[in-house]
């Protein structure tokens, strides 16, 4: 899978894992992850291209335009758990002030 596991990507995946069954929209993800739209959307595009994310347009009732919603696919959930665990392992394994010798 040609997907760079950048800290921002892992951050987005972590947000999705918080509520893996829920459909999320861009602004909600942006607020919870602290990422701007210009950073968030390229990540969402890459995740969708790799079939890790499913998307749909949700119609609004009060005359507002439909919203683009996102949710992890089964493969996406596996990948997200892998990434988050990997980052956690690295964080646990790495000493804060260099190697103890």
């Amino acid at each position, binding site marked *: 899978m*040609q997907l760079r596991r950048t800290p921002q990507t892992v951050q987005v995946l972590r947000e999705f894992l918080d509520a893996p069954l829920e459909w999320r929209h861009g602004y909600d993800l942006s607020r919870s992850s602290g990422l701007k739209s210009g950073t968030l959307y390229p990540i969402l595009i890459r995740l969708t291209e790799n079939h890790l994310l499913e998307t749909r347009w949700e119609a609004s009732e009060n005359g507002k335009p439909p*919203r*683009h919603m996102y949710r992890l696919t089964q493969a996406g959930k596996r990948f997200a758990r892998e990434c988050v665990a990997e980052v956690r392992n690295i964080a646990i394994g790495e000493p804060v002030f260099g190697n103890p010798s």
Partner: protein
Amino acid sequence: MSFVRKTADRIAGLVVRYASPGSKEWAQAIESELLYIESDWRALGWALSGVRVLFDPQPAPLRTMADLDVEAQKHAERRLHAVNNGWLVTNVRLFVPLVFALESLVDVAIGRHILSNTVLLLGLLLLAPMLYLRTREPNVPDRDDNAGLVRFYVDELSAISSNSLTFWMFVVGALLMIFGFELEIRFGWESVISLLWLLGLLLFLAKHRQNRRRLAQVEALLDTTSDSFS
């Protein structure tokens, strides 16, 4: 509606209008979110940040195997068209560097601008393998052979989008050629030629990136399809 909100709407509209085929839906998603952001300044920040989508061109999405078949057919037709153009049209891109190479060789032989012409010749030499590969006649499968066409498409995409030695030779060669040319002219309107070459190189790199993305899309689609069959 405030001026700030109007500006945000206008910016988001422009992003939707000029987004690449693969980013269009995403630009629309950014635009549609605007109405759900209550603060005008936050909406402006959201729209301004979304401009980045314009600088990240994406090829049109490939969602199904049928999309891939159509794309492979189109690619095969383009390649066949290139073959049918004949030797002269296919190899015309070799003539410009060849003329420059001959001119530089003559200049070196008569001892004029030796340093700049040597750099230019070195650059042209590094360009040669890529130019040769790009002008080679492809072995395009039959139109009815869908699997063969997809394989041909994937093979060609892999070859032209890999960061191989030939690719890096081409990039370094083009930069050396531009540098050599600049060394020779120093000032004046001829600098425009170097700028045009630089622009050409940037377009080549953008196309290379686009090809890499297309290959990633194709591989992801093939992976998903094989997963669903297994």
